[in-house]
């Protein structure tokens, strides 16, 4: 397997505050890789840096062996990376269908291609087809997450960046979303998944990285991480269990 996404010694600053302090990670073709960490560890910053929303101070991001540093955000999607942002960020006053069309904005001239992809998204999320003429702001939280993921798939990406897809969803919906992430991955799309729900994320990911205040502290295959004492205590509820005992 060759590395699809390769990040080397990445530093990101907000003003004078260093949010990422030199992190390196890789995502191989066809993999699900998860980045776990507490609030403020820099998980979203990492994804925003990859998709060009943040300036890169130091370090290098490569995708398919081509450098992504200084590529503007609107061109990243053409390179084959699609970013589903934290908090869904659907365009609330646009209809569901318009949101999906925008997901394929760079291919908008090819109407046939767009409608084929829309069909695929509707197959994955049948509820979206039912709601296609509804303003997306009126959807439920779970439906909005489905729309955000569906919109991300509309550009036919090679890699999907998912930022906390389970945020604020009921357990049953979380289960459903993770099942769909697994399904998307089995179609050959690599996934970089940022999550707070470590148990779920390690459940579907091949590998994982633990991000702590801008540094990667631990990395490894999912089963290794699940059995790692520190990971158990900090992210899988081990510490809380110990206290109860």
């Amino acid at each position: 397997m060759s590395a699809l996404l390769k990040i080397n010694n990445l530093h990101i600053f907000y003003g004078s505050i260093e949010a990422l302090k030199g992190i390196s990670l890789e995502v191989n073709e066809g993999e699900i890789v998860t980045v776990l960490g507490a609030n403020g560890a820099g998980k979203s910053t990492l994804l925003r840096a990859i998709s060009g929303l943040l300036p890169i101070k130091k370090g290098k991001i490569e995708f398919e062996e081509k450098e992504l540093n200084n590529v503007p955000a609107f061109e990243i999607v053409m390179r084959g990376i699609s970013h589903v942002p934290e908090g869904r960020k659907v365009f609330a006053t646009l209809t569901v269908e318009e949101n999906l069309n925008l997901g394929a904005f760079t291919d908008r001239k090819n109407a046939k291609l767009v409608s084929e992809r829309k069909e695929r998204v509707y197959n994955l999320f049948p509820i979206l087809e039912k709601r296609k003429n509804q303003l997306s702001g009126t959807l439920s939280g779970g439906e909005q997450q489905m729309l955000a993921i569906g919109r991300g798939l509309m550009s036919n990406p090679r890699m999907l960046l998912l930022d906390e897809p389970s945020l604020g969803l009921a357990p049953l919906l979380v289960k459903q979303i993770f099942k769909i992430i697994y399904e998307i991955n089995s179609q050959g799309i690599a996934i970089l998944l940022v999550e707070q729900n470590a148990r779920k994320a390690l459940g579907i990911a091949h590998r994982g990285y633990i991000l702590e205040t801008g540094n990667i502290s631990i990395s490894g295959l999912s089963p290794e991480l699940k059995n790692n004492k520190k990971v158990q205590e900090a992210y899988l509820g081990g510490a809380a269990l110990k206290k109860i005992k």
Partner: protein
Amino acid sequence: MRIFLEQMINGLTIGSFYALIALGYSMVYGVMKLINFAHGDLFALGSYLGFTLLVWGNAYVTTNFGLAGGMIAAMLIAAIGIGMAGILVERIAYRPIYPAGRLPAVVSALGVSIFLENMIMVIWGPRYQAYPVNVVPTVRFEIGGIHITLLQIIILILSFILLAFLYYIIQKTTFGAAIRASALDRDTAALMGININTVIFFIFALGPALGGTAGVMVGMYYRQISFTMGWNYGLKAFTATILGGIGNIPGAMVGGLLLGIFEMLGSAYISTAYKDVFVFLILILVLIFRPRGLLGEKIAEKV
């Protein structure tokens, strides 16, 4: 009843001027969160460009392309010229100071407004200028006792076509959805592959182009133009934008038409001297009772 209907037609006519100008305010505000105070003066500049063409080129154009040709040429040149002027204003006066925040850009917009107004005065002089009479033959129709001029019919049809065209682009095409998306959330729009600079280019070209066309229409309708007209019409069109809901494209159209009708009905039934008072009274009432404007319904984003 006859007076009422005639005033409705008059109101729709000037309302369509307001609507065409209001679209420029609304599009720019929607995407940039900037009130482009220079927009009214771009409209005035369009009126003067059309005036110049009709005065200097009228003989040539009308002998070769007829009266309609002269009118269309004046509007086209105003649209293209003012579209380019709009882009220029954005590049020179707004783009360099975006990083400084919203307020400096508004101040800069006021500066551009004063600059343009004075530029028009220096080039064309401080006196009123008169549009030539023969652009559209002064024909008056009578339909069921209601008088309507040929010029009014032309203005209403042309404005309707332009408004419908813009409505289609903004509300029905994917590029239009991209403009609306950029207005809602610029970062997420970029993630879709939308280049914000293309969107900015488009709104700063199209808004002023419509304004410039309206400038020629106003010149033909009232036949008298002055270098201060940009401020006057700009303020009313801005009121129309607020009335319809700023940032909302259909709102700007409805707001403009309604404002024109209010103004004409007010001056017909109450007093002409107070016609501007009605306009700004409406602005105050809207700001008090419905600050989001008539169509400015906001849908809460679920988190």
